[in-house]
């Protein structure tokens, strides 16, 4: 990626992609996703002189993933709070973009935070197993086993099956 002229240019160029990652990591909680993006970009802003000539997007993305992990750990110690109460799939889930997104996000919410992070890094950001392991601070073996569990869950997820039309 060419070096952005300014931090504002960088934000313009990458905030949408970061937001997409954050939405997937949070299982579609857009408010939490925006918080994560704002926090990740604030930290990137403070580190800008150091990271601007390198992989600034990588830095911001890693920060975002780590913030999500930290947030989850804090949350787990207290109680599980979600803006998405469990829902049953309805007929409306099978048509339109909004329904498609809801369907995928619901599927993602059936995963643990680590499973979701692995799926997002591996299949949305197309990171290798080794990169994913480094980014999450776990071993490659853990990435493999976590990925296998996640895929198993997603394959039996009724929402995802309905979305893709395969059984």
């Amino acid at each position, binding site marked *: 990626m060419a070096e952005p002229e300014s931090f504002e240019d960088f934000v313009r160029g990458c905030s949408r992609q970061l*937001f997409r990652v954050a939405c997937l990591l949070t299982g579609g909680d857009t408010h939490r996703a925006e918080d994560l993006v704002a926090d990740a970009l604030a930290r990137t802003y403070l580190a800008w002189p150091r990271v601007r000539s390198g992989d600034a997007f990588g830095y911001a993305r890693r920060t975002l993933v780590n913030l999500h992990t930290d947030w989850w750990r804090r949350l787990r110690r207290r109680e599980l709070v979600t803006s998405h109460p469990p829902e049953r799939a309805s007929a409306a889930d099978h048509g339109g973009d909004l329904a498609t997104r809801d369907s995928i996000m619901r599927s993602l919410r059936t995963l643990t935070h680590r499973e979701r992070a692995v799926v997002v890094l591996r299949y949305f950001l197309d990171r290798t197993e080794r990169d994913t392991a480094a980014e999450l601070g776990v071993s490659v073996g853990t990435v493999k086993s976590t990925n296998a569990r996640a895929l198993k869950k997603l394959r039996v997820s009724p929402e995802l099956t309905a979305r893709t039309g395969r059984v």
Partner: protein
Amino acid sequence: MPDLDDLRRALHDATEDLQPTVTMDRIRRRARRRRAVRNAAVAAGVALVVAAAGVPALDRAPRGGDPAANPPATAPACPGPPWLGTPFDTEVNIQEPGGRAYAVVVGLLGTPDHAGFTTAFRDWSTGQVLPWELTGLPRSPSGGFTVEGKTWWFQSTQLVLGANDVLDVGVYGGAAQRITVASEGHAAEATVAQAEGWTLFWVLRAAKPLPPDANGGPREYRGPERLTITAYDAAGQPLHTVTGGFNTGNRVVGPAAIPTPTAACLATR
């Protein structure tokens, strides 16, 4: 059962039309808050020590500068922060129009191992001291201040008293005979006082103030108003010097923040 390509497509499709509404203002605010939290983490140790030490009466011994500038002897003893050593009167007073007058004092709080540099305001009518800012001073064994392997020698704050009047107060992390503060090519001699192996300094200067957010961004401010601070030994040889940086003019505040919200201040000397 979907295959991996289906999964990839589903992840992309589900987020394709999402647009963030994160603004630069929001990012900057969070960055400022994070930097403040980081700085406060150092000061927190000092604050804990201060809290644990209780609130003894303010020492009213003459404290540097002109003794006449100290509060009247008839002023009642009043609560104040637990000073480490004696506070020093900068001989700069600020006054609300038709209202209270305050002397600006500087000093150290806490303990020698957990010290903080504070700028405070002493109410002339009651003698009460209102601490305003506390900056933690993590002592480096080899001199100066250190956090996470980074060492620096000067910590300063700028009080903006007018369009062309500033009071620079700060501390040098060693023993200096004299200290100068300069900006835009004009140097001024600061008043100095020794405390706990460090040198406190303050100087009222006719100079253009630093911008309020000079050190609020990710980069060091490089405008002409940035400060150059130099410490000299008894032989007149420079010990250390710094130009700009996050710890130089670390806080820049105008009269509205001193010490009551309504104060529009008048600097006197």
